[in-house]
């Protein structure tokens, strides 16, 4: 937060609902508030979405975006406030109400049924019936069209969802929202786990829908996306809506300033990496069916990024280093010595730490305290003789990290389930830092984290590198990859290809990732 200094009020005036020449109001909320126990998730929020527009909703983690759209989709009910739909006041007291009105939602977490087929998932809750039974044939036919539309193979229609990748599941969620005569489509961070190609397909769908008159509410932390897809932007901060602006009146920088309530200082980072023998070397590493021929080398103090689209094999490489997966060929060298961690425990003993990509599933102990979450990875260290918990030390470590990473919380006994995404991410990150690791692997370190927290996390990563840790980042977030790393390697089709130094441009890297750049150019 320190590189953002507070300013006065926003100098760009928000659009009023009476903006001339605009399409008709489709959906609007006024004075909506919602509390969760003591947390005021949203306070007095106003937003108006017009027909045929893409309306972006942005804000820091915990600003209340998801809560607001949950109210619109009937997944939560507002404490106060009014909703009008096509000019008529409506009450939405359950998801069925919203669906009946024509409000379709793709939630932040995929909401699917693992043992059911894609076709069934898409139609759950709105089956096509004939004589009281499900008309499988009609459903399957319709699903095939939708799969085509979102760029998935048609044969997926009858495959159980559990057999798809997370990104594919996210796309199925989108397909699911497209069934039915939706007039409003809500997308809560649909792009967070999609690759750029998949995002392009998504944008195509969104544009076509908007052109046919559907209103789209689009939530994303990838602010550059807004300028590609959105017509209007509503900014939220601390549970309140600050206003709505046409996209033309905004810049990424301006949006960020509105979100965090301050001015963003861009301080280019100068880093010098001491010359030293490499700490971590991956040599011709391969894992059948996932990746082959991976070569990476990281010196102490160096930050290397493996940039790869989801499915490229980058995530699997990280898992191998952390002992979650066995390599079938090649070597991992740690300070020159070959190692082959067989489990996270062994990896940790070697001084390798990993921040998992899926915070909720792989990182957080939901209803346990912050202290518990941090100490869970360091029980031998925080105990006497590996058996008796040293609770004083545990508490101290937790408090230290709360302060050091600026985690917003009253105390270390707070359960992490009550925290926003960004703060929870910091807690998981803290767990990786307790025993200063020799090698720190970060998988999607800022996924779903807002810009402010993102900047802080980047700073922490650099600080750690400065202290001598070799950092390996695996990400599909290109701006982040360029911004934070000393060197960047592109992973494509399961193998490391081109390498970029500092100062690479997004277009170069993207081209490489998409396969346009060939070996000869890198040579």
């Amino acid at each position: 937060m320190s590189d953002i200094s507070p300013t006065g009020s926003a100098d760009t005036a928000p659009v009023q609902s009476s903006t001339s020449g605009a399409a008709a109001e489709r959906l609007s909320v006024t004075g909506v508030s919602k509390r969760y126990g003591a947390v005021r998730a949203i306070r007095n929020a106003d937003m108006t979405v017009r027909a045929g527009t893409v309306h972006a909703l942005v804000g820091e983690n915990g600003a209340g975006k998801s809560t607001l759209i949950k109210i619109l989709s009937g997944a939560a009910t507002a404490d106060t406030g009014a909703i009008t739909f096509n000019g008529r006041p409506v009450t939405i007291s359950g998801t069925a109400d919203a669906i009946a009105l024509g409000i379709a939602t793709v939630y932040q977490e995929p909401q699917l049924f693992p043992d059911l087929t894609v076709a069934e998932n898409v139609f759950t809750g709105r089956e096509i019936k004939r004589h009281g039974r499900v008309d499988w044939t009609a459903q399957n036919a319709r699903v095939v069209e939708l799969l085509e539309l979102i760029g998935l193979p048609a044969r997926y229609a009858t495959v159980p969802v559990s057999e798809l990748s997370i990104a594919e599941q996210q796309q199925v969620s989108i397909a699911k929202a497209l069934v039915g005569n939706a007039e409003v489509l809500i997308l809560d961070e649909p792009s967070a786990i999609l690759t750029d190609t998949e995002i392009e397909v998504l944008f195509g769908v969104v544009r076509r829908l908007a052109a046919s008159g559907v209103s789209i509410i689009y939530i994303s932390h990838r602010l550059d996306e807004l300028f590609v897809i959105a017509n209007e932007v509503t900014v939220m901060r601390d549970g309140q809506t600050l206003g709505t602006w046409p996209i033309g009146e905004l810049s990424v920088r301006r949006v960020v300033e509105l979100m965090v309530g301050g001015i963003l200082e861009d301080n280019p980072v100068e880093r010098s990496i001491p010359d030293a023998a490499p700490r971590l070397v991956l040599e011709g590493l391969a894992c059948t069916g996932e990746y082959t021929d991976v070569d990476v080398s990281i010196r102490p103090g160096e930050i290397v990024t493996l940039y790869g689209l989801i499915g490229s094999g980058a995530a699997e490489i990280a898992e191998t280093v952390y002992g979650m997966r066995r390599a079938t060929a090649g070597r991992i060298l740690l300070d020159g010595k070959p190692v082959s961690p067989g489990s996270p425990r062994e990896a940790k003993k070697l001084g390798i730490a990993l921040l998992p990509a899926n915070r909720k599933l792989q990182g957080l102990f939901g209803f346990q305290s912050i202290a518990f979450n941090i100490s869970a990875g360091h029980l031998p260290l925080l105990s006497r003789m590996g058996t008796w918990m040293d609770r004083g030390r545990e508490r101290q470590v937790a408090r230290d990290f709360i302060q050091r990473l600026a985690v917003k919380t009253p105390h270390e006994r707070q359960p992490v389930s009550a925290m926003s995404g960004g703060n929870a991410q910091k807690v998981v990150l803290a767990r990786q830092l307790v025993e200063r690791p020799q090698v720190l692997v970060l998988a999607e370190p800022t996924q779903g984290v807002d810009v402010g927290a993102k900047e802080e996390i980047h700073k922490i990563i650099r600080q750690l590198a400065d202290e001598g840790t070799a950092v390996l980042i695996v990400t599909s977030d290109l701006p982040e990859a360029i911004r934070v790393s000393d060197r960047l390697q592109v992973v494509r089709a399961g193998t490391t290809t081109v390498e970029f130094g500092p100062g690479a441009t997004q277009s170069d890297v993207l081209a490489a990732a998409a396969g346009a750049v060939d070996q000869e150019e890198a040579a």
Partner: protein
Amino acid sequence: MSTAVSPAPAQAPQPEDGSSQSRSRLGQLPATVLRALLTQRIVLLLVLLLVVVVTMTTLSSNNYLAAPYDLSYMSSALISAVPLVMLGLAELLVITSGRGGIDLSVGAIVSLTSMVFGFAYGEWGWSLWLAILLAAAFGGLCGAVNGFLIAYVGYPALITTLATYYAFSSIAIVINDQQPISTAPIQDFFSTARSIEVPVGDGLPIPLGTLTFLIPIAIVVWVLLNRTTFGRRLYGIGTNDVAAQWAGIDVRRTRFSAYVLAGVISGLVAVVTVAQFASARPDAGVTGTGMALPAITIAVLGGVAITGGIGRVAGVVLATLLIVWLNAGILLAVPGNAGSQYQLLALGVVLVFAALLNGLTNRRYGRTG
């Protein structure tokens, strides 16, 4: 690498929430009390326990009961609390380990271990300590069968322990031709289940098992859960076992250990049961409704979340006291066959009530322990 990273430059310590709480005005007190009552299972159980004891004592002093409901009656009723608390704690361990953890086989382990203990102490002439050790180890072995299948092979706990319930109880019956063992040493062993007089008032007959088994086991389990790394690992895997694995916790071994410990406790319950009944019976833990269902009931009533990750020793102990003293009171209050029937009613009502309250508070106040 074993040194902790020193924190960034020290700043003023964060305010403790204690200080902020002390600022809360007196007007919030009722709300605070209500909240504690609703969200803290321990508080709720304490209040219910108080209600039961006060009601019974009042009825007793007004001669509505068939006999005085006094301290000595209450303490002699504790004898049935001994196996109940112990098995409740066994269930606490496995349920807290998460992923559908449960152990339907504890009663069958008690039966089978009773016979093993009976052989060792009653027939082979082993020394008492050795025989008790054997019982604990054998119980642990049975638990290890469950634990291996559940933690390492990936069987669902409910099914595994249903299967081993069938298997263990069958072996227990067959092993000695369905004959109980009640040789002289076993009969004399009853002396360890008798009551000792505690010099309170007119002398309070405290069942010896309370002191020799219940309290030590409760303390051991409490220490395990709250003061050791095993406890942390157990709560960790119960809360989210994928995250536990990524955090470097040996998930399988921890879960396996939970079932082994449940087996060890069941083995010790077998010893208690042999002492109480002065005979090693092949159906000791499975007659009637068996011992597993009451143990699970006690655990659940004591606030152990069936989804894992939440559970406290004090809850199990208080839940047992509540049920035992309630049942003892009902026997005095309701004569005839109806007495035992009203015990069922009371148990059912308390269980449903506590569960509904839990559901309500989870929604109102978020998840609590």
